[in-house]
C-alpha cells in the first residue's frame, strides 16, 4: 500500500506535533496550572492512537513509506518509514510518553519551571519519534542529535546544582560525540549504496557486508550505538544522568532514548548484520555490559542508581541478542525490549513516588510503607514480577525466548544463554529488592511521613505494570501485533509467531535456574553488596574519572596550543603571514616546474607609462628610506596612486577610481592607527631585523612578479569575458560589466563579502575599544559589567 498525501502529512505531524506543543506548553501550564499534564498528554495519546491505527496493516507484513516532496529540484524527499520495528518504538515512545507527561505534573507539581520542563519533554518526544520514523539516514541523524540535545537539557534541568551540570555535559559529550561518528558512518553507507533511504537499503541486504567500506562503516555505526545505549566502556554517563528529575529517568534513560542505539543496531541488522565482526563484537560488548551493569546495580543503595545500572544491563542484553542474530534471538530481543520498557518505566515512576512521598530513595532508609502506598506497591510488585520473569508476565516470555537460543546446542549460543542467565538472576535480585524492601517489613521513620501518591503519579506505574502482565496473558495476540512484525523487520525475513505456553525443558530449566540464583542473591543481598563495595574500594579508577581527566587534559591542551599560536606579537604574526604567502606562491611553481622565463625584451611602453612607473619607483625609495614612519606610510600611498594611474591609462576607470579611494582611506586609517599605537616616530630596527624583514619582502615581491609573469604567458580563457560582454545589457540591463557582475551575476558572493565587511567592522570596533581602555582596565570593565548584570538579575528575581 502506498500512503496517500494526507497520510504522509499526518505522519510528518507525528514528529512535528510534539515540537509545536512544546512551544505552547508553558502557556498551557500558566492557564491550567494544576492539570497541564493531563491536557498536554492528549498530544502523545493521539499520536499513539494514530500509529496504533496502522497496526493491522503492519501485522500483515506491510511496510509503509510516507514521502513528501521537500527539495524537488534535487529530488530530496522528506520521508518516513513505518514497519514492525518503528511501529513498536513509536507506540512505546508515545504511549509511555503520555504517562510520563501526566506523571511530571504530579512529581514536579509547584516547581517554578514546570512549563519549561513540559516543553523539554515534548521536544524530546518529537525527536525520538522522528528518529524511529525517519527513512532518510540524514533525517535520522538530525533527530538522533536532537535527542542528545534535549537529553542534555533534561539532565541539566536542575541547573543550579553542579552535579546536574556535569552529568548533562558528560551525556552530551559522549552521546553527541558518538553521533558524529554515526554521521560519518551513515554518509559512508550512503556513498557505498548510492542511496540515503533506509527503505531502499533494506532491499539490498548483504550488499554492505561484501563492500570494501564495511569495516569502517561497522565501527562508526557501532560507536554511535554503544555511546547512546551506554555500553561498556561508555556506560558511565547513564548512572550519572540520574541527576535528572525522575520522569526524565523513567522516559529517556530507561524506556526510550537509551534504546535508540539498540534501535539503530536493529534497524541496520539486515544491512550490516550477519558478518563475523557483527556476530562477535556485539555479543561480547553486550555480554560484558550486562554482567557489569547487573553487578554494579547490586552495589548501590540508591534505588534510582540500582535501576539505572539494571537498565544498562538490559541494554547490554539487547545488544547481545541482536548480535547473536538468530531468529529466536531477534524475537527475544523484541520481547525483552517491550517488557523492559514496561517494567523499568513503571519501576522508575514507583521509585519517584517513594522519593516524593518519603523524602528518600535510599533502600536502607525506607521500609514497610505498603500500607500507606498500596497502589504504588501494587505497581511495583507487578513490575518486579515481570522483571523477574515469573509466569505468565511478558518478562517470562522474553526470558523463555532468550533461553530458546540455547536449543541450537552451539557453544557460542550456550555461552550467550549462560551470560543471560547470570544477568537475569542479578537483575531479578535488584528488582525484587526495590519491590519488596521499601514496602514490606517493619516500618521505619522516613524524612517525610508518606501518603499515597496523587492519581497523576499512579496512573503510569499501575497501567504499565498491568500491561506487563496482560501482554503475557494475551501473548499470542501481542505477538501477532508487535513481536512477530518487529522481529520480521529486524530479521528481514518473516519471523512467525510461535509465542505461547510451551513446556520446553531447556528454557524452562534455565528459567528455574535463574529464579533459584536470583532468589539466592536476593536473600544474601547484603553480603553481596558488601563484597562488591570492598572491590569498589580497591578499584578506584573507572571511565567516569577517565572522562574528567580527558576533559581536563583537553582544556590544558587547548590552553597550551593557544599560548603558542596566539602569542600576541604583531611582527611575528606578520612574518608568519608573509612566509605563508611566499610558500603559497613558490611551491606550485617549483613543484610543477613552471618557473616562468625572464622576458628578454623590455616592454614597449608609452612615455606617460614610464612616467607613472618612475613615480612608483620614487615612492618605493621613499618608503624604504623615509626618516619617520609617517613619511613611509604616506609614500606607500604614492605606490597605490601610481597603480591607480596605470588602471586609468589602460582604460579601467572603475578600477582606477576604486583604487584611488581605497588608497586614500588606507593611508588615513594607517596614520590614525599610528597615533593610537603611540609608536616612536622612527622605526628603529636592528640590523638582523632589517635583513630578515627586507629579505622576506624581496622574496615575496619577486615571487608575486614571477606569478604575474607566469599568468601573462598563458593564454587567457575568454569564455567568461565574452559571456559577460554579450549578456550584460540584454539580460542584466547594465553596461558597467564590473558592477553588473558584483550586484547581479555573482550577487550571492557579494552578499557574503559584505557580511564579512560588516563583521570585520564590528570586530575592529571591539578591538579598538579594548585597546583604548588598556588591557587591564578592559578586563576589569568586563568583570564589573558581569557583576552588575548578575546583581541586577538577582534583584529582578527577588522582586518577582
Amino acid at each position, binding site marked *: 500500500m502506498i500512503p496517500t498525501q494526507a497520510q504522509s502529512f499526518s505522519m510528518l505531524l507525528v514528529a512535528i506535533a510534539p515540537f509545536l506543543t512544546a512551544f505552547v506548553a508553558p502557556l498551557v501550564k500558566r492557564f491550567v496550572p494544576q492539570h497541564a499534564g493531563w491536557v498536554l498528554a492528549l498530544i502523545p495519546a493521539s499520536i499513539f492512537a494514530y500509529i496504533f491505527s496502522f497496526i493491522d496493516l503492519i501485522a500483515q507484513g506491510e511496510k509503509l513509506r510516507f514521502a513528501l516532496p521537500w527539495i524537488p529540484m534535487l529530488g530530496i524527499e522528506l520521508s518516513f518509514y513505518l514497519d514492525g520495528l518503528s511501529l513498536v518504538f513509536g507506540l512505546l515512545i508515545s504511549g509511555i510518553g503520555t504517562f510520563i507527561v501526566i506523571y511530571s505534573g504530579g512529581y514536579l507539581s509547584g516547581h517554578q519551571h514546570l512549563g519549561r520542563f513540559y516543553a523539554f519533554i515534548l521536544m524530546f518526544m518529537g525527536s525520538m519519534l522522528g528518529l524511529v520514523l525517519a527513512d532518510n539516514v540524514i533525517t535520522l541523524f538530525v533527530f538522533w542529535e536532537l535527542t542528545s540535545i534535549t537529553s542534555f537539557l533534561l539532565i541539566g534541568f536542575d541547573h543550579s546544582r553542579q552535579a546536574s551540570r556535569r552529568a548533562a555535559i558528560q551525556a552530551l559529550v559522549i552521546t553527541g560525540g558518538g553521533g558524529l561518528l554515526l554521521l560519518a558512518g551513515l554518509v559512508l553507507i550512503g556513498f557505498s549504496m548510492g542511496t540515503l533511504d533506509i527503505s531502499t537499503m533494506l532491499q539490498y541486504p548483504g550488499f554492505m557486508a561484501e563492500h570494501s567500506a564495511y569495516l569502517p562503516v561497522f565501527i562508526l555505526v557501532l560507536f554511535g550505538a554503544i555511546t547512546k545505549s551506554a555500553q561498556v566502556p561508555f556506560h558511565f554517563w547513564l548512572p550519572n544522568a540520574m541527576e535528572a528529575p525522575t520522569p526524565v529517568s523513567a522516559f529517556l534513560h530507561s524506556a526510550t532514548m537509551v534504546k535508540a542505539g539498540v534501535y539503530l543496531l536493529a534497524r541496520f541488522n539486515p544491512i550490516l548484520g550477519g558478518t563475523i565482526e557483527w556476530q562477535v563484537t556485539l555479543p561480547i560488548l553486550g555480554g560484558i555490559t550486562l554482567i557489569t551493569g547487573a553487578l554494579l546495580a547490586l552495589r548501590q543503595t540508591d534505588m534510582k542508581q540500582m535501576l539505572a545500572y539494571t537498565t544498562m544491563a538490559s541494554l547490554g542484553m539487547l545488544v547481545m541478542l541482536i548480535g547473536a542474530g538468530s531468529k529466536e534471538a531477534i524475537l527475544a530481543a523484541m520481547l525483552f525490549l517491550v517488557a523492559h520498557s514496561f517494567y523499568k518505566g513503571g519501576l522508575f515512576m514507583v521509585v519517584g513516588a517513594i522519593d516524593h512521598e518519603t523524602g528518600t530513595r535510599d533502600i536502607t532508609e525506607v521500609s514497610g510503607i505498603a500500607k500507606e502506598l498500596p497502589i504504588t506497591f501494587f505497581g511495583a510488585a507487578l513490575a518486579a514480577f515481570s522483571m523477574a520473569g515469573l509466569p505468565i508476565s511478558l518478562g517470562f516470555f522474553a526470558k523463555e525466548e532468550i533461553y530458546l537460543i540455547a536449543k541450537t546446542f552451539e557453544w557460542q549460543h550456550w555461552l550467550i544463554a549462560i551470560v543471560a542467565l547470570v544477568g537475569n538472576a542479578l537483575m531479578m535480585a535488584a528488582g525484587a529488592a526495590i519491590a519488596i524492601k521499601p514496602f514490606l517489613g517493619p516500618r521505619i521513620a522516613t524524612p517525610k511521613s508518606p501518603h499515597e501518591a496523587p492519581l497523576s503519579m499512579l496512573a503510569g506505574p499501575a497501567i504499565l505494570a498491568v500491561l506487563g502482565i496482560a501482554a503475557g496473558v494475551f501473548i499470542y495476540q501481542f505477538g501477532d501485533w508487535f513481536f512477530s512484525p518487529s522481529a520480521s523487520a529486524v530479521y528481514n525475513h518473516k519471523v512467525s509467531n510461535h509465542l505461547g505456553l510451551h513446556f520446553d525443558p531447556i528454557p524452562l530449566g534455565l528459567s528455574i535456574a535463574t529464579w533459584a540464583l536470583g532468589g539466592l542473591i536476593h536473600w544474601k543481598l547484603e553480603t553481596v553488596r558488601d563484597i562488591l563495595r570492598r572491590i569498589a574500594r580497591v578499584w578506584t579508577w573507572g571511565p567516569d574519572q577517565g572522562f574528567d581527566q580527558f576533559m581536563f587534559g583537553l582544556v590544558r591542551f587547548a590552553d597550551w596550543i593557544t599560548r603558542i599560536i596566539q602569542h600576541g606579537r604583531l611582527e611575528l604574526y606578520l612574518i608568519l603571514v608573509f612566509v605563508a604567502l611566499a610558500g603559497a606562491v613558490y611551491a606550485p611553481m617549483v613543484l610543477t616546474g613552471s618557473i616562468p622565463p625572464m622576458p628578454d625584451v623590455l616592454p614597449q611602453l608609452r612615455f606617460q607609462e614610464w612616467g607613472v612607473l618612475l613615480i612608483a619607483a620614487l615612492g618605493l625609495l621613499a618608503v624604504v628610506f623615509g626618516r619617520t614612519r609617517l613619511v613611509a606610510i604616506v609614500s606607500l600611498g604614492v605606490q597605490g596612486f601610481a597603480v591607480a594611474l596605470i588602471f586609468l591609462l589602460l582604460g579601467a*576607470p*572603475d578600477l582606477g*577610481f*576604486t583604487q584611488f*579611494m*581605497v588608497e*586614500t*582611506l588606507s593611508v*588615513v*586609517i594607517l596614520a*590614525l*592607527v599610528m*597615533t*593610537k599605537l603611540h609608536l616612536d616616530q622612527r622605526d628603529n630596527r636592528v640590523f638582523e631585523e632589517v635583513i630578515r624583514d627586507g629579505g622576506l619582502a624581496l622574496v615575496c615581491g619577486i615571487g608575486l612578479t614571477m606569478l604575474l609573469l607566469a599568468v601573462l604567458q598563458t593564454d587567457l580563457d575568454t569564455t567568461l569575458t565574452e559571456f559577460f560582454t554579450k549578456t550584460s545589457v540584454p539580460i*542584466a*540591463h*547594465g*553596461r*558597467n560589466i*564590473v*558592477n*553588473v557582475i*558584483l*550586484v*547581479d551575476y555573482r*550577487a*550571492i558572493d*557579494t*552578499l557574503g563579502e*559584505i*557580511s564579512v*565587511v*560588516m563583521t*570585520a*567592522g*564590528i570586530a*575592529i*570596533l571591539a578591538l*579598538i*575599544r579594548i585597546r*583604548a581602555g588598556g588591557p587591564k582596565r578592559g578586563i576589569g570593565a568586563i568583570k564589573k559589567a558581569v557583576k552588575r548584570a548578575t546583581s541586577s538579575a538577582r534583584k529582578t528575581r527577588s522582586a518577582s
Partner: protein
Amino acid sequence: MNTVIFRTIAPYLAALMIVFSIFVLLRGHNEPGGGFIGGLIAASAIAIYGISAGVAEVRRALVFHPITFAGFGVFIAALSGFMSLFVEVPFLKGLWLFINLSDGSELALSTPMLFDIGVYFVVLGAISTIALALEEDEDDK
C-alpha cells in the same frame, strides 16, 4: 592640518562628497561607479568631517552608530534577494521594473539597485566605524 581654512571648508566638502557618492552609486550600473566606490567616497566624507569638526559632532550628525549602517546594508542586500520569493524565482535573481515618465524618459528600478544600495551602506558603515573609532581621542570618553 587642522587649519581655519580646512575647518571652514570641510562641512561643505563633506556634504558635496556625500551627494557625489550618491550620484556615483546610482550611475554605477551603466557608468563607472557603484555601491562599493560610492560607499568609500561617503566614508571619506565622514572621515574628513570627523577630522575637522570632531568625532562627537559627527556622531551627533549621523544619529545612529555607524556600524548600524553596515548592518542595515546587509539587511537591505539580503532583502533584495528575498524579493524573488514573491515571483518564485531563485534567491537574488535580478527583478526589474521600468516606469515610463511623462517626459518620455524611463525610470528603471531593480533589485540589483537595491542590492547595490545595501553594499553602499555596508562599506560606508564599516569604514566610517573604523575611522571614527580611531579618530576618537582616548580622553573623549
